[in-house]
């Protein structure tokens, strides 16, 4: 019986999600114009769903103080209260309002992951473009260094570095960004390498163009599309790594509200049949699924347009 019930729930959830996505696509198509509007109209439902989720998360993150009924860090009730009209998702081990912490968690968890990914991209793509364009020893040196750094599994490397530098939010961002920038470097270098061998780059070099012009005007416009898609994928990865670290108690530290640590703090409830701790985990999963759906669509579009 339980199984059937679960399956029923999944079916209902999928139907609702599809209906919402359909509505969102209509809305987005109407709200935009020209090329964008046409692209949105042809977007698959999965992608529309993804975009809708991302928009909702953005709104929640920006308006967190307005949406959350209680402050982020204040104890507002007794411990482990069940779901009530006052505390929609109950309270945690310290008596803080879980719904409010979920809302603030959007801002904290997503914000930190976004900042980290952006930093990783800045480092990785600048160095990758440089390595591919300049070539020679610079390229060799950086590529070998990245090879070695990538020979250490990233979570393990992060754990090692966090042991040493401690676990403040700043070190967390820096450590993950540096580790992740190696992956961005690889991609940026590979993609630029494909562009650098083109005749139009040779023509620009023979024209006497200098390095900054070559990189910003001739190469960069041709590598942005794959880099943007990769940004989505890397964001998912960073987001999951940070959540994993927080879950392990080594990432974002209390009392900052964060989804990974919320799962950890309330995990015991699951064994009592309470699904509340699954909600922050689900929130992480939902955003990652959403981003992946959008990236998948973009990649498909890019490969389709090439023909």
């Amino acid at each position: 019986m339980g199984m059937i019930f679960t399956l029923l729930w999944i079916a209902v959830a999928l139907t609702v999600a599809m209906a919402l996505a359909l509505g969102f696509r209509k809305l987005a198509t109407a709200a935009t114009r020209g090329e964008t509007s046409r692209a949105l109209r042809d977007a698959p439902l999965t992608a529309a769903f993804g975009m809708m989720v991302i928009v909702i998360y953005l709104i929640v993150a920006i308006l967190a103080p307005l949406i959350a009924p209680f402050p982020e860090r204040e104890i507002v009730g007794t411990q482990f209260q069940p779901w009530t009209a006052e505390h929609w998702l109950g309270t945690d081990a310290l008596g803080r309002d879980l719904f409010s912490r979920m809302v603030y968690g959007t801002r904290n968890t997503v914000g930190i992951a976004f900042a980290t990914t952006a930093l990783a991209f800045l480092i990785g793509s600048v160095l990758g473009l440089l390595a591919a364009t300049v070539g020679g020893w610079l390229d060799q040196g950086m590529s070998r260094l990245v090879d070695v750094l990538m020979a250490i599994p990233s979570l393990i490397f992060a754990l090692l570095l966090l042991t040493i530098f401690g676990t403040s939010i700043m070190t967390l961002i820096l450590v993950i960004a540096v580790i992740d920038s190696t992956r961005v470097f690889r991609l940026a270098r590979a993609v630029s390498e494909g562009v650098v061998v083109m005749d139009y780059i040779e023509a620009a070099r023979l024209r006497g163009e200098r390095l900054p012009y070559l990189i910003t005007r001739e190469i960069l416009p041709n590598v942005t599309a794959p880099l943007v898609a990769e940004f989505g994928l890397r964001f998912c990865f960073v987001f999951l790594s940070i959540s994993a670290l927080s879950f392990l108690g080594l990432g974002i530290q209390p009392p900052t509200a964060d989804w990974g640590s919320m799962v950890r703090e309330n995990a015991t409830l699951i064994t009592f049949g309470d699904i509340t701790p699954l909600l922050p985990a689900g929130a992480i999963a939902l955003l990652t699924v959403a981003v992946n759906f959008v990236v998948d669509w973009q990649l498909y579009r890019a490969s389709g347009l090439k023909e």
Partner: protein
Amino acid sequence: MADSDLLLDIRDLRIDGKAGDDWLPIVKGVNLTLKKGEVLGLIGESGAGKSTIGLAAMGFARDGCRISGGTIDFDGVDLRKSSQDNLRRLRGKRIAYVAQSAAASFNPAHKLMEQYVEAPVRHGVMGRSEAERDAVELYRKMQLPNPEEIGFRFPHQVSGGQLQRAMTAMAMSCRPDLIIFDEPTTALDVTTQIEVLAAIRDIVEQFGTSAIYITHDLAVVAQMADRIKILLRGEEVEEADTRTMLADPQEDYTKSLWAVRSFKRSAQDAPKSEPVVSVRNVSASYGPVQVLDDVSFDIHARRTVAVVGESGSGKSTAARVITGLLPPTHGEVLFDGTPLPADYRKRTRDQLRHAQMIYQMADTALNPKLTIRKLIGRPAQMYLGLRGRKLNERIRELLHLIEMEPDEFIDRLPSELSGGQKQRIGIARALAAEPRFIICDEVTSALDQIVAEGILKLLDRLQGELNLAYMFITHDLATVKAIADDVVVMQKGRVVEQGPKEEMFRPPHHPYTDLLLSSVPEMDPDWLTNLLEERKSKDHPTSADA
């Protein structure tokens, strides 16, 4: 059509290709018939739908294509109505296929013999050992070296020309009624092409196999086909037997195809001034491999030097040395009598400006993210310091020069242009620098013949108007005949022979020049037969196709 010896009868064939989410017609109602033992040549430029029709004759459509209408009647069976199982029993056994690139179409994981015996054994035509003996026999007929042993090599261990012959032998393995040849010699050098053409024609004749021979090269099809059908954008233009078609084409399009080979620029009087560019005793190497060996030649203003050779002859390397991309190990390049620095990074802006380059693939030579305005404007801005309204005027002037309407094109991206238009933009970009010397690297070889002729005429006109010196790198002797004043023949990094065009095309030649010249197919349908007999009687050394 009550012909009893009719093998293939295609009626009103329609094929769609997928473009985004829509299906667009590629083949728009083509009829095609083939008698037993007959060879039909399918001719057309890129996008004519000839390969698609060839595959449809096997009841096959590539991913992203679908056969949407018509009948394909092969020996009394409608292939469109046949089950996949029945089609499979025909393919390889009664209808075989020879692909354009043998190197890519042989499975790299298996030996040639393994791939040869697959069809006869799987289709139950003969046992494995019999098939292997048969393979050796066919390899011998195809004049492959070491026919006993070559089957036990992997594809990567065999040269391109040999692979193409091995693939033809493989197609013959079940003695099919019909073979589809899809541009089988397009990827080969001219001297190799001859041998493959001769071998294919021989074996098709011997077994009385019907064939559809697909190509864009008129002269090649004239040697191979009994009948020729001409296609344009998925529709038939006309069809006739080979000799009639060559002698008396009816349609304007066909006539224009025939005419392209007749363009010849007016003879230039030799002003014999000081050369603009001279290459002096240049040797160069990639790592330990020497690719240029003591190469010298001059290029004068208002004159075109054609550098001719097959792949690997060093003709493109010579251009790289002149532009400074590959510093020579020995020798130097003079511009107006003064030596240029070997590395382009050490050259002055003016030295860079005066030597411009036009590339073979306009697709990769134009940055796809820049508009025509930026593409042409940048050199004018950089070298000549033009800004604002002056720059805009100059860009428009350049577009007029290459016969493109500025208002229509100036803000387009390269992807919104046709192949010929892209190549014109490449020319405009070179002109924007106001150079004295332009290197044209196979500029017409990626283009259809009619478009190519337009480009050649344009370059010819510009040379006269702007006093340009051209270096024309090409493997195509028809282009040389059309546009060159002087010819440099290269082989394996050395200059074999050089001189004014008139002398070069008049015997006596250096043996390699002779081989090269005689290997270029001519429109005469008897050309291959005559050539082979002539070579046999002279016991001419065949090319080194190892």
